[in-house]
């Protein structure tokens, strides 16, 4: 197998840089074998070719000093590196780099939980700490704190937060809950943000902004530095927790349930980010497609309805939760029941009747921050299932939700794919996640999925919607949709990039931000 090389870099230059890096971290922590070691730094769910995202090597430093030395070496050779924390960003590219030949900077060995403060409810963690790690630590210490984890939860706190990931408890907006970070810049300078910039800081995990420009966000979904530490607020364990589910019979109920949700959400009657989940997403937890339909193309309505009836699911399935003392939860649940009970056919479900149902069980865990991996079961909906997520932001507004849903469903069906999706209602917005699932062993189907995704980006942009996160393949296309005022936002990004990383070594192309030397070629 030919070693993939970064653009403009020779094998000799790469080998020379690797030899120097080995002296920094040790040979055991430099991964070069394409057959075994580098296989796991690829994206099995890409819609093009494996080679498009194949790294040349991976290196796992153990501390900030090693990162500084690695940066000095790759600056010398002008070799691009691609930073990952735990590398579980699947559906968006996983650990794979934006272009072939990059060296993956894998921060998995920097996995210390530096502090958990029960009184003030925060943790300070390194990038290699997974949600499982933090959850297990809290359980072992008997701390009365909850985490808010992604689904699935094997990813890391730093990686998910810096990708603008979301969770399912009241602390589900992860970047909102981030407080303070340490970053290594391309030239090796270490920067603390927020209060930890003061000598002998006592409030780094408490107040986000410090004095002056709050720059934490600059290091998220970007390539301006390597985040090596992050503070994250944790929710105190509440005295009570009441999860609920509402099954809805009709497609049009999406509009009604969304409109009814907004006032309850922004007034904190529903405490967490409620989810409106489509039938197939729910069904895929317990059955596979061929148990109900073996034909080609999207599953017909008649089969969907039979499946809904068999599994006691709705065409839409709405999940939410309230937290707190019993009387408060009772008050809120009364309001919630009165509100959503007005939807014809709406049926409420609780733990006493739903427990044991795979979809219910994992949502109940997620809404209380208990890590699990059940959502990965979705991939078995079709054999050999691969997926990429198309994730436009919608207003928390019924008509807007229906418009996005109908646009995506129509195009998905036109291309022969099922619509599998959910809406996650944040504060005033919704993350609409369309899981575009395809047979990853079929080149034809992958191509079709790729073409559909590209079309959806353009269709969404035409309707005024942008995506909050995306797969490697579509970062440039989506960047081009954030184009107001002659791409002035991207001009600003590139000005920062050129100043902080003049050699363009840090994750070139991440989210469409390219260094000067590669900008014309992207």
């Amino acid at each position, binding site marked *: 197998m030919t070693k993939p090389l970064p653009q403009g870099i020779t094998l000799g230059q790469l080998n020379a840089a690797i030899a120097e890096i080995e002296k920094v971290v040790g040979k055991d922590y430099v991964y070069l074998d394409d057959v075994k070691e580098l296989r796991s730094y690829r994206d099995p769910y890409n819609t093009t070719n494996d080679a498009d995202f194949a790294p040349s090597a991976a290196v796992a430093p153990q501390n900030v000093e090693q990162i500084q030395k690695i940066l000095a070496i790759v600056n010398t050779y002008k070799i691009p590196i691609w930073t990952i924390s735990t590398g579980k960003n699947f559906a968006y590219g996983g650990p794979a780099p934006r272009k072939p030949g990059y060296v993956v900077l894998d921060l998995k060995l920097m996995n210390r939980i530096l502090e958990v403060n029960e009184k003030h409810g925060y943790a300070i963690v390194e990038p290699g700490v997974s949600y499982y790690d933090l959850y297990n630590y809290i359980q072992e210490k008997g701390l009365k704190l909850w985490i808010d984890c992604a689904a699935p939860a094997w990813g890391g706190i730093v990686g998910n937060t810096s990708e603008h990931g979301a969770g399912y408890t009241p602390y589900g907006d992860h970047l909102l809950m981030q407080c303070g970070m340490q970053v290594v810049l391309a030239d090796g300078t270490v920067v603390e943000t927020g209060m930890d910039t003061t000598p002998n800081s006592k409030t780094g995990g408490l107040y986000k902004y410090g004095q002056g420009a709050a720059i934490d966000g600059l290091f998220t979904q970007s390539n301006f530095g390597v985040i090596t530490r992050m503070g994250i607020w944790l929710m105190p364990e509440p005295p009570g927790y009441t999860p609920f589910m509402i099954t809805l019979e009709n497609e049009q109920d999406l509009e009604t349930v969304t409109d009814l949700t907004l006032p309850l959400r922004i007034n904190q009657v529903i405490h967490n980010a409620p989810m409106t989940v489509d039938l197939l997403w729910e069904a895929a937890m317990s059955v596979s497609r061929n148990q109900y339909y073996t034909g080609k193309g999207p599953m017909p309505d008649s089969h969907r309805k039979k499946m809904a009836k068999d599994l006691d699911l709705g065409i839409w399935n709405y999940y939410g939760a309230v937290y707190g003392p019993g009387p408060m939860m009772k008050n809120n649940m009364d309001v919630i029941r009165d509100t959503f009970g007005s939807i014809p056919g709406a049926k409420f479900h609780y733990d006493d009747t739903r427990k044991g149902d795979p979809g219910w069980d994992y949502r109940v865990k997620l809404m209380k921050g208990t890590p699990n991996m059940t959502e990965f079961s979705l991939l078995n909906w079709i054999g*050999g299932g691969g997926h990429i997520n198309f994730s436009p932001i919608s207003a928390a507004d019924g008509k807007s939700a229906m418009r996005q849903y109908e646009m995506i469903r129509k195009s998905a069906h036109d291309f022969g794919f099922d619509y599998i999706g959910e809406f996650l209602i944040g504060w005033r917005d919704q993350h609409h996640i369309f899981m575009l699932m395809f047979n990853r062993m079929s080149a034809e189907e992958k191509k079709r999925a790729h073409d559909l995704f590209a079309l959806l980006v353009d269709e969404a942009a035409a309707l005024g919607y942008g995506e909050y996160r995306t797969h490697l393949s579509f970062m440039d296309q989506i960047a081009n949709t954030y184009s107001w005022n002659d791409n002035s936002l991207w001009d600003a990004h590139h000005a920062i990039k050129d100043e902080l990383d003049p050699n363009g070594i840090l994750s070139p192309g991440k989210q469409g931000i390219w260094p000067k030397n590669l900008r014309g070629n992207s």
Partner: protein
Amino acid sequence: MLTRRTFIKSALASNVALLATPSHALQLALDNNQDKPLLVFADERALNAKEFISQVNDQKENLDLDIGQHFDVLTKFCKESPHGHIAGLTRDSDFFVLEQLAKDHGFYVNYSATHSYDGQTLTHEITAPKEPANLIATALKNAADQWPNWLAKNMHSLPQSHQAMITTKRQLTVPNTQQHNFLVSWSLSASQNS
């Protein structure tokens, strides 16, 4: 190395009419790791995997929907048996997750195969070093609907060396396929085994 005699015996034990296979090729291609600790995962909810796991005598783990519940078992095995061998017949997603987890302990894939049903066609698609890939593909095809039994009896003999891999496919006609899910068989071993 798995001997031809053992190979045939195991195949016959599952009522398999085995095509003649060159013993020399077998001896070269298939490993014999009877003494190595083996951890086997299976999705007990799938009929073929259920049949498979019932034949396994090694340490085994029946998977439920949440593969996260089994992380500790895998991690413990990797730490306690750094020269061991992990194998399974599972859902595709479970294999993917376990592979990702195991690589952080130095365990890598050296064999995987998809087993898919479409109408009356059963397709085995094997990815492994060249010689064992072809041998296993033929053996699985010959085993017909008893292929899970063949796999169970040959778990210890699946490839464990890290060499360049090929993908090869075998198809056969089988009746009554609707009750069978898409499954993946796989094998991971520590890199120092190679």
